[in-house]
């Protein structure tokens, strides 16, 4: 019940923020210097074609009127026509979004599966060679941006070592599984097509790892710091002196509070995953929404740019709400504070 009211509040506020974002991005896209219609066509396009496109984009109307038209279209399920694909932007995004979500999902899986155990280990072995090794790798992970990792992976693992494929979601000739969720790995498992699953998975490894390395480094450092802090607390000393098995102490009493800062910072790390996906998808030719967004940006496709930014905002907002729920499940004190309000 508590969670329900909290969620209702959060969702209400998210709608407000997204509306604000739509006004911001819509205004920026039209107020900034340059004629969008002229830029979308070519500088040498005939005047009548530019005028026609201007008419079609309603660029001759005053800005607030343009926005209201756009908003009306959104509520009737349309984000306007893309100048590149000549389809509704919403149709394009529903086609490309699952590929991006799959990439983000696997990046998150890598992130959690590597950062937490490594951070716990470094924290428990603080100031030993293990800790120093982890710290060294963490600095590398923090300082090298994801798109540079992507290029290096492409070169080393793709072209030199041939460990994993580096282009697209499936090998040429492999038939995509029937669309159920749009996530090839899940769809191929549902339909029992194991070889397609393996192929889709192998295509995911390099791009999702390139995305995940930054967050892994950051979260490993934060987990390490909170493990070190919690190890010095009295309740751990008490459980040790009670003779509780080490496994129990580490996995139950130490891990739970140590993960709270890690999960909290994940909200920010998800922002970096979503942001870098725009470059990593382009580098790996991953047919997702982010690559579609980059193409739209390079082609000055206004409706598609606005649509992609809005859907990115939506995905980011949902991810942050999920992070908040997980933090409140981990930390009863936060729930208590909510209750007290």
């Amino acid at each position, binding site marked *: 019940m508590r969670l329900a009211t909290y969620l209702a509040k959060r969702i209400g506020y998210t709608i407000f*923020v997204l509306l*604000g974002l739509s006004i911001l991005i819509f205004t920026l896209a039209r107020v900034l210097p340059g004629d969008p219609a002229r830029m979308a066509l070519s500088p040498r396009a005939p005047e009548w074609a530019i005028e026609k496109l201007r008419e079609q984009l309603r660029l001759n109307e005053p800005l607030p009127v343009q926005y209201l038209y756009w908003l009306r279209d959104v509520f009737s399920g349309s984000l306007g026509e893309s100048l590149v694909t000549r389809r509704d932007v919403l149709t394009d995004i529903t086609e490309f979004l699952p590929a991006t979500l799959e990439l983000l999902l696997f990046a998150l899986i890598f992130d959690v599966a590597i950062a937490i155990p490594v951070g716990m280990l470094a924290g428990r072995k603080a100031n030993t060679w293990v800790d120093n090794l982890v710290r060294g790798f963490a*600095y590398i992970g923090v300082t090298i941006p994801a*798109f540079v990792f992507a290029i290096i992976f492409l070169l080393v693992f793709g072209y030199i070592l041939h460990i994993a494929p580096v282009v697209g979601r499936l090998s040429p000739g492999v038939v995509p599984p029937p669309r159920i969720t749009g996530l090839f790995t899940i769809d191929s498992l549902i339909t029992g097509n194991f070889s397609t699953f393996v192929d889709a998975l192998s295509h995911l490894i390099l791009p999702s790892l390139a995305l995940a390395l930054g967050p892994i480094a950051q979260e490993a450092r934060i987990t390490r710091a909170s493990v070190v802090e919690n190890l010095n607390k009295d309740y751990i000393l008490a459980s040790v002196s009670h003779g509780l098995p080490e496994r129990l102490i580490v996995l139950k009493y130490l891990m739970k509070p140590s993960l709270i800062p890690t999960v909290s910072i994940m909200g920010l790390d998800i922002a970096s995953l979503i942001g870098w996906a725009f470059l990593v998808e382009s580098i790996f030719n991953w047919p997702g929404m982010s690559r579609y967004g*980059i193409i739209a*940006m*390079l082609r*000055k496709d206004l409706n598609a740019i606005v649509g992609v*930014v809005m859907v990115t905002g939506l995905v*980011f907002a949902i991810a942050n709400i999920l992070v908040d729920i997980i933090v409140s499940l981990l930390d009863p004190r936060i729930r208590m504070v909510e209750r007290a309000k």
Partner: protein
Amino acid sequence: MLEKLKELGVLSPRKAEDYKKAWYKFSRNPLSIAGLAIVILVVALAILAPYVTPYPHHAGFFVDYDNANQPPSLAHPFGTDQFGRDVLTRIIFGFRYSLMMAATVLAIVTPPGVILGLIAGYYRDRWPDIVIMRVADIFVAVPPLVLALAICSVLEPNIFNAMMAVSLMWWPWYTRLVYGMASSLRMEPFVQAAEIVGASKFHIMFKEILPNCLGAILTKVTLDAAWVIILGSALSFVGLGAQPPTPDLGTMLSDGAKYMPGIWWITVFPAIAIAVIVLGFNLLGDGIRDVFAAEAH
């Protein structure tokens, strides 16, 4: 240097003592010193680029197909690119653009971001707080890179517009940082005392609250320098920032990526260059944070 400033009366003796202590704390961590050394080196190379590079005329538009795509050698330590230009020279000139980007963006963004944060924090729960922080929330509703890409895409692609685009979406991070600190400092006894003796709002915001936020702001500026450099190179990598033949590190990466993996040096050395600058600012920022964190305890 410090002694001189003290004699001139620019620094009070107590202040000078504080700086000395801070420097002592900072210098005890070898990583912080390494960060400072990297940043100083990069800045010096950038300023002196025309004098220290072996082929300064290779920085911009220059073609020498006879020497194109040469692997690293004594004459060209980092090899030459597809037009026969020296990669080392172009990287050092690339530092200029990266640092200029970071300095410009942070100089534009920090003052308004900090002032808005001070106002919102001072008027906590009243309308200035609500208006400023709601608008800030809208700006951070999308990852910074995505908003910067979107803004750049509707502008002419060049390095100046890239700076403007990044500046436009960066201020809320300072507002949020200062807001958090100001709204709690506002309840501290020394601020309350100033208020009781009738200090003006301006005095309280800028003379009582702001000095206590400076450490955190300085730390963030240093760490953000790394972020802005990454963001700038990402924008030009995509083609929405600096354009060739500008020797920008991001442009060099995207140019070189086409020639992978055979001609790896065009891509790998600029990539390492970005990592080195970012590492330098990160280590320096961590060092500064430690100094101020130790002071707070």
